[in-house]
């Protein structure tokens, strides 16, 4: 209520009411009632207090009416007894009313005021939404002073408006052109006014964009999709997979936030390709669609294409954990992500899959020998998205064993070109006696037939390495190779295959025969004849003496050596001087040289024999007696060849003379022991072997058996054996690593880089001397192992350990990589495969530390194989 006191305004009515006597007292003069204000404009619903001035009448009270209605009414407005007029909610028609004040005391006296009632001015506080899309839409407006006739204006254009209340309007409209505009409200007449304006955007249609648009996803891996909405304030979407809200277990599910989870198995293909874009191929895997639909506008949506691939399978267990090599095994494998069609590998061998679910497989097959007693189980999911699993490492051993794997491997070191997983298993099962019988009976590995003189030796050398890798006659090969380093011919002088191949065949054929029988064949070999100049050697002619070369080396290098030996290999000492006693003199050499006269090349087929014959190597040399010195000769031990013996008889007599010589047994024993077992055998060992040699008249099979089964060979003091000579080093590493080698290998190139060019010793003195010492210990192989060669040896291992020797030499790196999932297993497998279990804890620790520098199983596999092969503990036979 207004209560202002002002000299210019009448007193408020309430105060007048307090003075009734005084007012009535003035009635008698000019009687009147005046309404003040006399004219007034008001908005509908508003109030205004009018004052009535009553003159000279008492009491001065009045009654109020509107348009003649006392107190007014809802149509014209109401007025209270005290003159407060409240305009009607709507302006009346006409919108001018009369307010009358009638004196109570004198009803004829009255005053009037004219009141104009108008609509109020609208005020707009918000438009919801203030962004709409083209087309039909409705909006809600909040504000004040809205009246039933209010009109919503969009960009000055009235639209269909629904009055809700004085503070709320609704409007609907259809707009086709996007634009920024304004919204206002216009109230109708009387007093029609336009409200303030609010910004309003009419946008193009709603857009939805899903990212990523295209994705390849493995089962088992979720993917977050995001939908961005354009031209709308409601950015929410609803997700569908292949049209199914939220997806399902067949095609995968998607949550409200857009996180897609693929199904457990690939959906059938083609998978409900309802909305696959035309250019989407399904070859990479079945496709599902992930769609986001705008909640603001269901017509607005976007679809992402998901190409599903098989999971990367993970094995968490495989049972049983211990397998029997060579037997049928059934494995129960658990894990995740196993796909239909998955291939299960045991080692590198596929198994037969009997049952398969995403988390379990049962498969069976034959267990191989493994690698170092270990074998991996892994699987490979097929396309789409073919992928290997991790590997579990199982142990594998022979069905029955008469010796440990370690003992078998040690025995194989000296009877083969190095233990392989297969040979260890086999020997464990058969035992040594049966194994040796097999070796004795094994068919001889052949070398390629030389075609002509010009045939390169390369193919035969490559065949040698292949035979060593795969041939059954391992021990024969080892003995033949040992003999080739005692009864040396060298490609340095006889490089052709028609020279070397027949000679090497002869050694193989006689490797388990009799040494003296072999010696006779060697003596008459045209290859040896050429190498040491016995071919075309003849009796003294015009001051040209018989050639001493073969005679000298036969004595020095093939049978006796320079010093007389005791049975145990120690030199006999002259009791008088205390010095070694020579086995022969220069004069003896000349006697032997004369015995070896009269021989020439065998006669080529179809040609007439003559002295000298043209070169020919396919048969023993032939003798021409007229070139033979048939005079008397004195051999060793006082033997005399009487005059008149033929060339052939004299060869026999010389061999017989040597057969009697007690030096041969320890001489040959030392050299064969050195080549097969150790550089520094004890006198007792030499003596035992020499006794067998002597007792059997030079039987190489019995001698070999004595060597390889001797207690000293079986338990050599650790690392007192020998540095693996290059050919053996290469082969034992590759065999230990279970390498596959083909006929076009170039392994001899590596042996050459290490100082041992197969069949190309620098001279008849072989690659190294049986007397060479290192650190005080006889160790012949060290003579060629210079520091630069040692580096080449390590670098060979580097290449071999990463299959860098060419396609013709491949180790099973894939299996090593699988074992590398468990580095300790990998290192232990290498320990067993290469060092028959002798690797120290410190070595293992160093290697494991190196492996821990990477999680890449391939690098781990290579580095482990490198370190194990490079270590001196492998290079020296452990």
């Amino acid at each position, binding site marked *: 209520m207004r209560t202002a006191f002002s000299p210019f305004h009448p007193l408020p009515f309430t105060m007048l009411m307090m003075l009734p006597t005084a007012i009535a007292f003035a009635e008698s003069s000019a009687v009147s009632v005046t309404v003040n204000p006399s004219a007034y404009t008001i908005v509908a619903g508003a109030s205004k207090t009018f004052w009535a001035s009553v003159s000279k009448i008492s009491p001065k009270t009045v009654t109020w009416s509107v348009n003649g209605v006392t107190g007014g009414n809802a149509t014209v407005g109401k007025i209270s007894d005290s003159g407060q007029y409240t305009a009607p909610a709507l302006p009346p028609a006409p919108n001018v009313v009369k307010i009358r004040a009638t004196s109570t005391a004198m009803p004829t006296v009255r005053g009037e005021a004219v009141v104009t009632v108008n609509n109020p001015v609208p005020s707009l506080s918000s438009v919801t939404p203030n962004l709409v899309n083209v087309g039909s839409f409705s909006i809600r407006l909040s504000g004040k002073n809205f009246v039933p006739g209010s009109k919503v204006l969009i960009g000055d254009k009235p639209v269909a408006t629904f009055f809700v209340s004085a503070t709320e309007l609704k409007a609907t409209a259809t707009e086709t052109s996007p634009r920024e505009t304004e919204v206002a409200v216009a109230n109708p007449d009387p007093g029609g006014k336009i409200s303030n304006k609010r910004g309003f955007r009419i946008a193009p249609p709603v857009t939805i964009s899903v990212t990523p648009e295209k994705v390849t996803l493995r089962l088992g891996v979720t993917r977050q999709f995001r939908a961005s909405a354009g031209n709308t304030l409601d950015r929410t979407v609803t997700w569908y997979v292949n049209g199914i809200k939220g997806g399902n277990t067949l095609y995968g599910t998607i949550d409200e936030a857009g996180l897609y989870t693929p199904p457990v198995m690939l959906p059938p293909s083609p998978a409900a390709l309802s909305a696959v874009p035309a250019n989407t191929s399904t070859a990479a895997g079945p496709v599902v669609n992930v769609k986001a639909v705008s909640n603001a506008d269901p017509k607005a949506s976007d679809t992402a294409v998901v190409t599903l691939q098989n999971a990367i399978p993970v094995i968490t267990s495989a049972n049983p954990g211990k397998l029997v090599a060579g037997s049928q095994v059934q494995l129960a494998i658990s894990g995740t992500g196993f796909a239909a069609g998955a291939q299960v590998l045991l080692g590198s061998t596929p198994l037969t899959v009997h049952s398969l679910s995403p988390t379990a497989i049962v498969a069976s097959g034959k267990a191989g020998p493994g690698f170092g007693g270990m074998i991996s189980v892994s699987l490979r999911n097929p396309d789409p998205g073919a992928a290997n699993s991790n590997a579990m490492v199982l142990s594998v051993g022979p069905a029955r064993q008469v010796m440990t794997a370690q003992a078998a491997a040690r025995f194989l070191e000296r009877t083969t070109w190095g233990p392989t997983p297969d040979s260890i298993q086999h020997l464990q099962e058969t035992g040594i006696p049966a194994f040796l019988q097999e070796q004795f009976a094994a068919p001889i590995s052949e070398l390629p037939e030389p075609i002509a003189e010009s045939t390169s030796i390369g193919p035969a050398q490559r065949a040698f390495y292949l035979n060593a890798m795969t041939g059954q006659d391992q021990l024969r090969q080892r003995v033949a190779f040992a003999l080739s380093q005692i009864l040396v011919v060298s490609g340095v002088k006889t490089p052709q295959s028609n020279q070397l191949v027949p000679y090497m065949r002869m050694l193989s054929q006689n490797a388990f025969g009799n040494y003296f029988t072999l010696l006779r064949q060697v003596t008459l070999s045209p290859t040896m004849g050429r190498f040491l*100049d016995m071919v075309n050697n003849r009796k003294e002619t015009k001051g040209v003496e018989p050639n001493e070369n073969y005679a000298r080396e036969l004595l020095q290098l093939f049978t006796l050596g320079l010093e007389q030996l005791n049975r145990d290999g120690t030199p006999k000492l002259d009791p008088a001087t205390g010095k070694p006693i020579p086995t022969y003199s220069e004069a003896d050499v000349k006697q032997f040289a004369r015995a070896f006269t009269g021989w020439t090349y065998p006669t080529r087929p179809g040609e007439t024999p003559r002295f000298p014959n043209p070169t020919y190597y396919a048969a023993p040399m032939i003798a021409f007696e007229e070139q033979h010195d048939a005079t008397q000769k004195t051999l060793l031990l006082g033997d005399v060849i009487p005059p008149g013996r033929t060339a052939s008889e004299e060869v026999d007599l010389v061999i017989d003379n040597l057969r009697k010589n007690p030096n041969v047994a320890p001489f040959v024993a030392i050299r064969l022991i050195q080549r097969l077992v150790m550089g520094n055998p004890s006198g007792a060992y030499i003596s035992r072997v020499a006794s067998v040699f002597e007792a059997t008249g030079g039987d190489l099979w019995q001698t070999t058996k004595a060597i390889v089964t001797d207690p000293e060979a079986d338990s050599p003091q650790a690392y007192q054996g020998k540095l693996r000579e290059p050919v053996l080093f290469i082969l034992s590493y590759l065999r230990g690593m279970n390498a596959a080698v083909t006929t076009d290998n170039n392994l001899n190139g590596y042996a050459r880089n290490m100082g041992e060019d197969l069949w190309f010793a620098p001279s008849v003195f072989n690659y190294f001397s049986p007397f060479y010492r290192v650190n005080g210990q006889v160790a012949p192989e060290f003579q060629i192992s210079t520091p630069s060669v040692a580096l080449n040896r390590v670098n060979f291992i580097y290449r071999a350990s990463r299959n860098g020797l060419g396609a013709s030499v491949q180790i099973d790196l894939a299996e090593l990589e699988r074992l590398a999932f468990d580095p300790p297993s990998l290192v232990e497998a290498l320990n067993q495969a290469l060092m028959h279990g002798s690797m120290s804890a410190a*070595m293992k620790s160093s290697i494991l530390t190196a492996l821990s520098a990477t999680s890449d199983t391939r690098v781990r596999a290579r580095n482990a194989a490198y370190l194990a092969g490079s270590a001196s503990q492998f290079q020296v036979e452990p």
Partner: protein
Amino acid sequence: MTSRRNFLRLGCCSLSTLTVASQFSRLGLVSANAQSTGDYKALVCIFLFGGNDSNNMVVPVSTQYAQYAQARGPLAIPQAQLLQIPTPGGAVYGLHPSLAAIHPLWAQQKLAVAANVGMIVRPTTRAQYLAGSVPVPSNLFSHSDQTSSWQTAMPLGGTTGWGGRIADRLGLLGVNAPSNYPLGTSVAGGALLLNGVNTKAATVIPGQTTTGLEGSNPENAAMVARDKALGELLEMDAGYALIQAASANTKEGIRIATLINNVTQSNPLQTQFPGTGLGTELAQIARLIQVRNELGMRRQIFFASIGGFDTHSNQLPDQQNLYTQLSQAMAAFYNATVEMGVAAQVTTFTESEFGRTFQPSAGNGSDHAWGSHHLIMGGAVKGGNLYGTFPTLAIQGPDDSGNRGNWIPTTSLDQYGATLADWFGVPGTEMSVVFPNLANFTTQNLGFMG
């Protein structure tokens, strides 16, 4: 090349001086050094494996040719084909015609001959030999034993080489300090000549391009870890002699490769070497001499070799081939020393386990004998002369140890070697360690070195 740092880690020694030197090299700052004629001397041994029949390498022309031709029969070189080498004393000899490549060095006085050198314990006559009244080397006529003898200068057997003993003694004197590169280098495999008591030779495989530890990569953590583990494994010998030896070899191989890899960056020599085995070996030696300053070398002994001299048969064509290879490689090597400005600081000499019988053997060859002639080449050689005593070319003559012309050496290896060692700078006080039997000979310097 990327793996150098790793080599360094595997190596045992500080290489800081070398590293600095090699950096200078890359900046081109050592060209002055390379040209310098500072204190540097090298001996280069070319070992003729098999026993060189030097009866045909140096042939008397002015005095004994008739005896030569008569006794040698089918092996004799026609006099007209010999490349004449006159001596200041007036006697004229002839080089084998296949030595044409080095023949001009005789006239330039850069090439000399030491006649009838061999292993003897003391001066020895035919009578003494036949009577067995003086000690003679063990197992004369055996390749293996006499190959050792010539390298050890220990005619009764020994395990250290005379070059290795020089390295021992000069090493104690710090001649190459502070370099860690060995004084001896063999480009022909293991060489007993260079084995000392305390020192071991470097070995370099001539012409081999990969000399480092393959796979080393300082940028790759896994390979760095691999090399670290290898280094650890090479220290795990647990007292086993063979493991120690093998690991020592590997470590030394890595160490030497590292040193050489770090310095062999110089411009290639202009001198062309023949592509033969010996040519490749001598080219490798020349490259090492080229980087002598970067390796920190003031004294070096090199060992090279050529095989095939065991000419029991087919000698004439074989020798023609062998001497061609020998002379062409030697001539190229001399030219390379001239190019490098070190001709007077590098002396090349031959060794061979023995000579061969003057009398031929069946098959147009010759058999094992004893004394033989040798070649010495270099700017410091008092060339154009023949030193020592040429043997009397008579079967069963005064110089024949037997009945086929097996010449008893008239000059010992000790005298031959000591003459080289004296030039090389071995103090007289050390000479008896290097050549134990030198004291048995009156003349201890043959005078062929300037």
